[in-house]
């Protein structure tokens, strides 16, 4: 039997439980004797704790205990960085709970354990915390003055500068026939998940075993951190991944609560559960994206890009969190996007401010970089009188240049190259499907009170982070097969994708793969998780290796049972077969298991183009999308139905970041957007006219599936496409959007400024 599950729009197995309300998310767990944790968080941005008095809180009936930094001998543990763990960042890492100093609104100060959340919250109000305020650092420009310091020891608010370099940019700029310099900014927003975070810990004092539920994304790595912090061997800790209500890069990194809740459970020797509420989530989960670029481009008169140089400044918030440096690094390395830029020099500074710390959000640094560069390219096209599409055609990296080396980054010594593809073909497909030539005639037109604007932009998406992923296949008692994965689910549907791949590799029906287990630390020897669009490529390739080992194990075991040569053994549904029509039930091999792995040091780069057609009401600054198309070549789509879900889903997230989502602070570092009425997410009525086309024209040469990571292509170019489309709509006002989000207020101000200028 030759299967073709790979490439088919197979309906998801996860859906059967989710659609019936039968998923099990961490808040659905309610063991006997459970205590609920609630967390007192800082209400000031910057200050010194002079005293904490919890005595009144302890008097509230139903309150069990209150935990502060004082309960941690040797002081609160520090959360180490997972990605780019450079020694320079050490002084800026976050303690699990505030000890002496408070550095952002939302920083944990105390944990109350109570018989219910409501009682715990009653008690929070009775904890008296005295704080001596310190002047707040509310943005990177204030941070750069280094007057008020978040950390005294390093003596600066700048934790690092990444240097992205290729060629000799300064030499090119000296002789360039044309240059243009712009300051552009992206707003602060984040990978809000619909399910807030949660942790439940159960400590068994007898066996010395700790079970932590609510794990996500990188459970194996987080177990290593927790084991060290809490003083247990790794194998005494089991991280359990339940159903996870969205990840987007933000969920599943090691946060304060990932220590505090297990610590509390061990202290009181009872199960303890903490479920984040939405207000906490907005001020505690990793923020992202707030970045300002002061960049310059050099071109020939025909629009050929000669070089890029400049500075990027990222507002890091108060601490260097586990993956906090990724965005600032990526924005420097990928500023050139899919374009041929021979000379690059970008310095990307990481500034500490009194805000919620940042981490990755889907398309980290890439969303920002795409906005910066694509905005600049449209401005260049107007300056030079070059068609904006031709400008892109001229500069896209061609397939004959693959693999194409991009800027390397110091001090991490990160070198990278684009693996494969025909970027120009994807752009042309996008233009054709979008009917660009017809629609471009509408550029700037005023029809029925609305101005029309169009834009097309190109992008690349990195994926498939190494170094390794693991998978294991095992025969169950009933002769079905279980698949155990080292990657995690954050809701993207990996159970289905991995079952498709395994069934094809083993040439058996998909329903013979009874379960796909993932995420928890008990299933495989090691796992690397779900980030950097890596699950399908890395996990899927590991499944292929596991399947080959599993088939070999079955052939060996089957040959002994049937007394034949191993090469004569096959698997057919619920049997293994030998020569002469002999067969035995697979159940006879119950317990047989084989592990496989995929090792990889290179990255996949999927790519494509976004085209947007918008109308703008210049009196209201209000934008509507008439048509929006994403074309993305993903190498190989294991499940086209789900892949479209990734593209459209990530696109609408990107449109949220481009148009709506904005985490705001005042000058004192006070957080202003603490509810979903203040922090606006896309709703069903906001962006109805969006579509996508998925191409499989250029499989990746670096993995056996030919797949490329493809969960982020929709989000990456949304800001650039929308800003350019709006700029083109408002061209008669001379409006040039230089920041995101494109709120009605901001666009109205641009129109007003344009009208004032015209009048003068």
């Amino acid at each position, binding site marked *: 039997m030759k299967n073709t599950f790979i490439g088919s729009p197979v309906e998801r197995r996860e859906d059967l439980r989710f659609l019936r309300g039968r998923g099990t998310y961490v808040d659905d767990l*309610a063991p006997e004797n459970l205590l609920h944790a609630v967390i007192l968080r800082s209400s000031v941005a910057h200050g010194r704790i002079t005293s904490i008095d919890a005595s009144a809180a302890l008097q509230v009936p139903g309150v069990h205990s209150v935990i502060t930094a004082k309960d941690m001998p040797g002081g609160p543990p520090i959360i180490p960085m997972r990605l780019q763990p450079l020694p320079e960042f050490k002084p800026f890492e976050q303690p699990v709970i505030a000890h002496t100093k408070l550095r952002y609104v939302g920083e944990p100060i105390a944990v109350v354990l109570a018989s219910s959340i409501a009682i715990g919250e009653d008690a929070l109000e009775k904890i008296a915390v005295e704080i001596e305020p310190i002047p707040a650092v509310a943005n990177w420009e204030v941070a750069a003055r280094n007057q008020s310091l978040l950390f005294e020891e390093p003596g600066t608010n700048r934790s690092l500068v990444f240097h992205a370099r290729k060629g000799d940019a300064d030499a090119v700029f000296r002789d360039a026939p044309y240059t243009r310099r712009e300051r552009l900014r992206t707003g602060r927003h984040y990978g809000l998940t619909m399910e807030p975070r949660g942790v439940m810990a159960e400590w068994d004092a007898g066996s010395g075993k700790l079970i932590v539920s609510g794990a996500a994304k990188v459970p194996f790595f987080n177990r290593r951190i927790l084991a060290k912090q809490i003083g247990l061997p790794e194998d005494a800790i089991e991280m359990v991944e339940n159903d996870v*209500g969205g990840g987007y890069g933000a969920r599943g990194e090691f946060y304060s609560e990932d220590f505090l809740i297990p610590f509390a459970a061990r202290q009181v020797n009872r199960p303890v559960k903490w479920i984040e509420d939405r207000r906490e989530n907005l001020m505690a989960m990793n923020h992202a994206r707030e970045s300002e670029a002061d960049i310059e481009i050099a071109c020939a008169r025909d629009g050929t890009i000669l070089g890029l140089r400049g500075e990027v400044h990222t507002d890091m918030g108060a601490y260097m969190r586990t993956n906090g440096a990724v965005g600032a690094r990526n924005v420097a390395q990928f500023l050139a996007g899919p374009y041929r830029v021979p000379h690059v020099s970008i310095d990307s500074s990481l500034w500490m401010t009194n805000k919620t710390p940042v981490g990755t959000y889907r398309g980290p640094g890439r969303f920002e970089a795409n906005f910066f560069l694509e905005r600049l390219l449209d401005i260049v096209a107007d300056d030079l009188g070059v068609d904006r599409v031709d400008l892109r055609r001229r500069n896209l990296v061609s397939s004959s240049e693959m693999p194409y080396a991009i800027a390397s980054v110091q001090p991490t010594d990160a070198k990278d190259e684009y693996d494969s593809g025909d970027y120009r073909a994807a752009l042309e497909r996008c233009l054709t499907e979008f009917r660009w030539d017809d629609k471009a005639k509408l550029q700037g037109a005023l029809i029925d009170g609305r101005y029309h604007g169009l834009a097309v932009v190109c992008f690349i998406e990195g994926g498939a982070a190494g170094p390794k992923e693991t998978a294991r296949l095992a025969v169950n008692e009933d002769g079905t097969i279980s698949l155990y994965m080292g990657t995690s689910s954050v809701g993207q549907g990996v159970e289905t994708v991995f079952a498709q791949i395994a069934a094809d590799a083993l040439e058996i029906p998909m329903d013979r793969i009874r379960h796909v287990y993932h995420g928890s630390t008990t299933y495989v020897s090691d796992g690397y998780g779900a980030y950097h669009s890596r699950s399908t490529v890395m996990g899927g390739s590991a499944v292929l290796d596991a399947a080959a080992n599993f088939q070999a194990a079955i052939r060996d075991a089957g040959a002994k049972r049937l007394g034949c040569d191993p090469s004569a053994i096959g698997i057919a549904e619920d049997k293994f077969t030998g020569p002469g029509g002999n067969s035995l039930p697979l159940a006879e091999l119950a317990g047989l298991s084989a592990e496989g792995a995929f090792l990889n040091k290179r990255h996949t780069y999927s790519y494509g183009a976004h085209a947007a057609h918008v109308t703008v009401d210049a009196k209201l600054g209000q934008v509507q999308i008439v048509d929006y198309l994403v074309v993305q070549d993903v190498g190989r789509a294991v499940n086209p139905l789900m892949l479209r*879900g990734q593209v459209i889903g990530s696109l609408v997230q990107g449109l949220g970041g481009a148009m709506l989502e904005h985490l705001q602070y005042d000058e004192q570092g006070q957080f202003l957007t603490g509810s979903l*009425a203040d922090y606006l997410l896309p709703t069903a009525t906001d962006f109805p006219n969006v579509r996508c086309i998925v191409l499989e024209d250029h499989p990746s040469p670096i993995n056996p599936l030919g797949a490329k990571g493809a969960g982020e292509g929709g989000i990456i170019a949304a800001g650039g496409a929308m800003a350019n489309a709006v700029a083109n709509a408002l061209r008669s006002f001379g409006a040039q959007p230089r920041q995101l989000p494109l709120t009605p207020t901001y666009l109205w101000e641009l129109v007003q400024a344009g009208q004032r200028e015209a009048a003068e």
Partner: protein
Amino acid sequence: MSVQFTVNGKAAAVDVEARMTLADCLRQHLRLTGTHLGCEHGVCGACTVIVDGAAMRSCLMLAVQAEGSEVVTVEGLSNDAELTPLQTAFRKHHALQCGFCTPGIITTAHALLSEEPYCDADRIREVLSGNLCRCTGYVSIIDAVLEAREAYQNADGGAR
């Protein structure tokens, strides 16, 4: 306070604090954990249940306010044997990913289609604009609800 109401066709009697929400009561006392809490301030719609035929945010309603009401949760719109037409359409169109907002969207869509089985895409978008989904971008959800309409329609043009 004691409160009695019907949940998914079965009588329920619970003793709750006056301040307990219907959502917490369903989840904690009745262990109906299909109803999810995404914001607890009435914006995200994940906790939507059907109370006396109308879609309601169970985080904005106190349990005691449900006295004498008929409450239907996502569990009450499901059966073991097979997916309902609405659920089948959601699966076919990949109208869910992480599944967290899904119960609230299923209940909202069911309440809508029960009342307005001939509603158009704009109407579906308008009604579902009170349910936040972070994964799908909504396109597939609208397609699924459009497809499911037929199961709610009668030959005479009314609701089944």
